[in-house]
């Protein structure tokens, strides 16, 4: 951790000037360096938080789950043309699952890019990351098929154009 000092600041308030009056900058920083062990001990010393974090997380997630359940919905149409709705997050989760099933891929975001209408397939834009050594050309047809099957079997709608965007390459 650097111990560089900023240049003297003429706007220093009087209290700071008093401190500097007692100690030169160099002496002060030498003294601070000698306190390094105390600072390290302070960092390692537990705060009074103790084990309270689990209760806090439970409270946070309880509120978040309630809000998520009331989140936005996507209107869909069955093959018979009957309308129904599904939470948008659930629809996206199914598409993500199809991506995650493909070795070396990790889903990021899912967007429905077409208007839902009776008899009309649903277009998607899916962003993902790909492990080193994989090829978009190799997995793209297989992944599009996998997503389409899952859409049809679980969500009950046909997939149309599926735009795949590789945002990043990750190590596995």
């Amino acid at each position, binding site marked *: *951790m650097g111990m*560089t000092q*900023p240049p003297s*600041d003429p706007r*220093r308030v009087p209290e*700071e000037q008093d*401190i*500097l009056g*007692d*100690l030169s900058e160099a002496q*002060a*920083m030498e*003294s*601070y360096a*000698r*306190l390094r062990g*105390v*600072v390290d*001990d*302070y*960092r390692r*010393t*537990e*705060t*009074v*938080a*103790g084990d*309270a*974090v689990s209760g*806090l*997380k439970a*409270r*946070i*997630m309880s*509120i*978040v*789950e309630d*809000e*998520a359940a009331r*989140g936005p919905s996507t209107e869909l149409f069955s093959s018979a043309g009957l309308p129904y709705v599904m*939470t*948008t*997050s*659930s629809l*996206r*989760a*199914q598409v*993500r*699952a199809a991506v*995650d*099933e493909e070795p070396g891929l*990790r*889903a*990021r*975001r*899912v967007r429905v890019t077409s208007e839902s209408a009776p008899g009309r397939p649903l277009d998607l834009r899916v*962003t993902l*990351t790909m492990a080193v050594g994989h090829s978009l050309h190799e997995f793209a047809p297989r992944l599009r098929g996998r997503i389409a099957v899952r859409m049809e079997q679980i969500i009950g709608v046909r997939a149309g154009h599926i735009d795949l965007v590789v945002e*990043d390459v*990750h190590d596995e």
Partner: protein
Amino acid sequence: MSGQAVGTGDPYAGLEEVTLVSRAQDGDLVAFEQLVDRYESRLLGLCIRMLRNRVDAEDIVQDTFLTTWRRLDSLQNPAAFKSWIFRLASNACLDFLRRREVRRTDAVDPGDMVEQSATGPSVEDRAETSAAVRELDRVLETLSPEQRIAWLLYEIEDQSYTEIADVLGVTEGSVRGRIHRARLAIVEGMKGWA
């Protein structure tokens, strides 16, 4: 929450932060929970060291996570999540301390003071906590909130001057100045220990 963890195995194990944030932006609760796991203790520790009151610190951390959940879609760059969440928590701490100071200043009736939340040491009062650490904790309380948060982000959170400037919304030079002045005050306050 496991209802959304569809697929084989644990698709969240080892996911990089940008992916977790992106998924959380799409309403993925498991991804958001992973982010809570990553930052909860760090934010709570920071807020306790700032406010010296666990209940107030927990309130701020809870509000911080709820705000991130509700505004996640406004985050244009998922890679900036860490900076964003520390900014929300830091600003909340500084606002809280300003309000507490105003209440303290405005309170003319001693009875009004009861309404204020009590403060104490920020570190565990255990036998293994050294006297020097307790003294440092006491000196830190005398710093201005702006100096204290900068010092804590640098020394405890190990953030760079650039990262701290981003979190606090000030220039890097200002961060350097605050940390430098905090160090001078620590040296002065701990003369017997250096």
